[in-house]
């Protein structure tokens, strides 16, 4: 459910990025990092992205989601370990609770990939930016 809001935030961010570009070029891919220790379901994000970008400048753009595993660091053992989400978070060796999280909390828009044409100018799809703003 909250993936809908997050997708809206994602599209807004891409809109802002695009506004800052000298040329409005077609976006091919949007790269996201989503940690496994977040409340975000990548499949729901994909679905929301597909629905919310329809008939906007992002229509057809691919959302590439890289998931990062949950990795914790045990201070007592001075070692990293991988907690078993849903079952066990304490250090498997010394039972210390999960304190430092080294990976798994990421929710990041990494980069945008777009096409630069030889004689790049306003592409016809670019005029739809405002529409996307209204939707979001």
């Amino acid at each position: 459910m909250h993936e809908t809001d997050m997708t809206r935030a994602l599209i807004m961010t891409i809109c802002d990025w695009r506004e800052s570009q000298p040329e409005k070029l077609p976006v091919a891919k949007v790269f996201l990092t989503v940690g496994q220790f977040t409340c975000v379901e990548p499949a729901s994000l994909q679905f929301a992205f597909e629905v919310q970008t329809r008939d906007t400048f992002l229509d057809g753009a691919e959302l590439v989601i890289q998931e990062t595993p949950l990795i914790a660091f045990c201070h007592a053992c001075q070692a990293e370990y991988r907690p078993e989400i849903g079952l066990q978070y304490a250090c498997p060796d010394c039972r210390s609770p999960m304190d430092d999280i080294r990976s798994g909390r990421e929710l990041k828009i990494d980069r945008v990939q777009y096409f630069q044409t030889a004689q790049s100018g306003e592409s016809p799809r670019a005029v739809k930016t405002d529409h996307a703003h209204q939707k979001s």
Partner: protein
Amino acid sequence: MHQIIDDTLGINLLHANQAGADHNRAHFDEWGVTCLNLMSSPGAGKTALLEKTLAALSDVLKIAIIEGDMTTELDADRLRQYSVPVVAINTGRACHLDARMVAGGMHTLAENHTPEDLDLVIVENVGNLVCPAEFEVGEHAKVALLSVTEGEDKPLKYPVMFREADVLLITKIDLAPYLDVNLECIADNVRQVNPHVTVLPVSAKTGAGLNAWLSWVQSVVKPSQMTSV
């Protein structure tokens, strides 16, 4: 002739909400108000706890409530009986409060009251163990509730919420004798994901443990406010 170009953004997906939450918190700080964000599954006893809290503290502290409810004002009406400002935010189909909604609640508060006169604003989030955990609203501390009827394993299954909590209230402990539930096990499971959490077992019905909760609330209210009371 297409050339593919990458532009690195490196922006947090929730940066807009985070900025809104920071903005709200700056307002609270300016007003000298402490803000708590109350989160739990539906029916864990957030509103019952607030009723007891208002009954005990509304003479000592100036409290206002921002109440998130999906469609009704039932909870808000329960709290209005305690003669404190209650702003109801109907989230519609949204499963959590976000910074923008709470900012709306703060504006409503500021229109009808003098926020500088307040000591404490408690935000009662929408009942949900998943979504509210990722959306800060401008709070100074997060309070999670888990009732004994929900089961000992919930902190393991919904770890993010319990990881983020500053305080965990184990509620409805008056029911514990009738259930196969071990309060220590709940506390241990929470500490697995959050070793720094303060665990307080309470019963809003019998009043057991409430003094520890009320003391904690008073301890987080900004000192300048406490002395002015």
